[in-house]
């Protein structure tokens, strides 16, 4: 996004710092689901960070944990810290969190219909957000609500204030949610699959809007999605998650140009391309991870074509890879990888290890986690 012609962001403290965040779910009868495992990352002010993963990756749970919106009966933050500026969000009370949500840190949820209250008009909902955090009178709140709706491209906003969510299309509702999320100019916006439920052309509109607004206002954005195409457009940096761990974290260009984790390589090779002609898809073997059993080693080992013996025994730490050279560039943070046997540059195209005679290591005899293979 430096092509936008903006001046490079001054190096300041990151607006969000997550350290060793772990989330557990108690799903009854002594079954504990390890949804998020020791996740750490930084998000720069005005930065755009993408969190990519499939079901079971823990990406949504991570965002809910940051916002402290996890269901209290079953979920708990087992460890870690989440620093928004100089405050640790984990330590704040519910009341203090309520004061922050919407004002400093906002959410655009996945499903536009469930994000809006069906019995209140759009105007009431936008104004409600304003009045919850600032001392404004109804008249002014309505006025500002109309302005906000205009900013997100809703035609004739003054008239639309009186209408109800079900009278709007999916794309319009999502715009309203974006308006509500940005109403108080938060420093951080979390967008969780903001366009999954929308048509392709509407998706393009909404992403354009999101991009434009966050860049204009300097809002940092944490974008969560399974769609790598959206990430290519919207983010400066991408983190790939698998089974609650971050397995690869790098500037966006590098994730696509030089993916190094076998899972990342697998994902990129299993996506059909609109432009690609006749290239066969190479699916990732096996099935998504089972989260109620803790593997001793890397959770991707059962599906990994590059697996070594050590991969079954020891979880690799997230660290810069040694044997690969990267251009550091003006952006912060280089390429981080959690892998014992990363994919070499010439192996990316083929999607398999090139070492002659190499076979992925089988699971050790003393038993481990096994998800059933697809």
């Amino acid at each position, binding site marked *: 996004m430096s092509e936008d012609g903006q001046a490079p962001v001054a190096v300041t403290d990151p607006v969000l710092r997550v350290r060793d965040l772990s989330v557990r779910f108690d799903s009854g009868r002594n079954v504990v689901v390890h949804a998020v495992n020791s996740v750490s990352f930084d998000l720069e002010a005005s930065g755009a960070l993408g969190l990519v*993963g499939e079901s079971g990756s*823990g990406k*949504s749970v991570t965002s809910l944990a940051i916002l402290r919106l996890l269901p209290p009966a079953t979920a708990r933050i087992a460890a870690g810290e989440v620093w928004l500026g100089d405050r640790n969000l984990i330590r704040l009370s519910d009341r203090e969190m309520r004061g922050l949500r919407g004002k400093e840190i906002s959410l655009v949820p996945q499903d536009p219909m469930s994000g809006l209250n069906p019995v209140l008009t759009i105007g009431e909902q936008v104004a409600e957000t304003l009045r919850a955090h600032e001392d404004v009178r109804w008249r002014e709140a309505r006025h500002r609500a109309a302005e906000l709706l205009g900013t997100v491209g809703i035609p004739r906003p003054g008239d639309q204030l009186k209408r109800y969510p079900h009278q709007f299309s999916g794309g319009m509702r999502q715009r309203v949610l974006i308006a509500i999320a940005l109403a108080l100019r938060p420093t951080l916006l979390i967008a969780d699959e903001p366009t999954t439920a929308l048509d392709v052309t509407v998706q393009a509109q909404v992403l354009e809007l999101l991009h434009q607004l966050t860049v204009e206002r300097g809002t940092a954005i944490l974008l969560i999605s399974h769609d790598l195409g959206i990430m290519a457009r919207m983010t400066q940096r991408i983190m790939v998650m698998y089974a609650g761990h971050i397995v690869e974290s790098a500037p966006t260009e590098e994730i696509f140009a030089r993916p190094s984790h076998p899972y990342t390589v697998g994902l990129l090779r299993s996506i059909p391309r609109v432009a690609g002609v006749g290239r066969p898809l190479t699916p990732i073997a096996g099935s998504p991870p089972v989260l109620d059993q803790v593997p001793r080693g890397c959770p991707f080992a059962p599906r990994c074509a590059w697996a070594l013996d050590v991969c079954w025994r020891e979880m690799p730490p997230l660290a810069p890879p040694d044997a690969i050279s990267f251009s550091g560039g003006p952006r912060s943070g280089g390429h981080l990888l959690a892998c014992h046997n990363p994919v070499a540059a010439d192996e990316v195209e083929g999607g398999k290890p090139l070492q002659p005679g190499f076979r992925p290591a089988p699971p050790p005899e003393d038993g481990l986690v096994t998800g059933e293979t697809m």
Partner: protein
Amino acid sequence: MKQDRQPRAAAGRLRRMSRAVQPFLAESWLNGLGAVIVVLILLLAVFGPLLAPQNPDQVNLLAVLQPPSVNHWFGTDSLGRDIFSQVLAGARISIEVAVIILSLSVVFGTALGIMSGLAGGLVDEIIMRITDLFLAFPGFILAAAIAATLGPSLQHTVLALAVVFWPWYTRLIRGQVLSLREREFVLAARVARAGTMWIATRHLARNVLAILIVQVSLDVGYAILATSSLSFLGLGAQPPSPEWGALIASGRSYIQTAWWWTVFPGLALALTVLGFNLLGDGLRDWIDPRLRGSLVGGVQE
């Protein structure tokens, strides 16, 4: 040998059933309490005649209006009959009555509900308007009116209550069918050229069973209570029937001198209704999250 396998198979089935029951009991102590009460009442109903110390109809003019004692745990009535035996016999009647009422109304109401939901259009309209008509009347008044018209007796009460209960099932099942009808597995059956009967019996019936069970368990208590109330008013079982409502009515005039005649049948009635209500509530709370869990899922990753 086949005989050897049977007890082992039965033991296996019992173990599987108890494993299925355990989470339900673990959910709340009230569920356990409800289950215990219901099982107790059912046992008493089934084995009542064997457990009763005396024949409930046995008149003994030497032991009239005796207070509770070792010989007569619940005392005796104005003709010297043992009230404990009568209460036991009444349990049997109450359960029988509830079973008949609910069988009639569930079968009729469900069939009508499935028909209405599947057929749609004019058939649906007609059935729903008839259902609405029945539902418009306060249930108890309607039952009383029917029972009074037909003549006071237990059989007529049962019929009257079946008439009151069926529309609830029709509505409930129709709602379920409407939502299931568009589910992809029903569409898949239609693509396979399955007919309406096939879909109704093989797919819909099994998928509404859970809701039905919950509703029935909640209604048993009401059915028993309604029967007893009608008997109390003189429209149902007539004395000397040991039906609880009739007992309470008979004992009413003696309430100051022989309180045990009214109180014990009353307690039995209250306990039974409580037990079934607890069980029904527990079942509903237990089944609901499971339903929600299987079709919608919790936090999406």
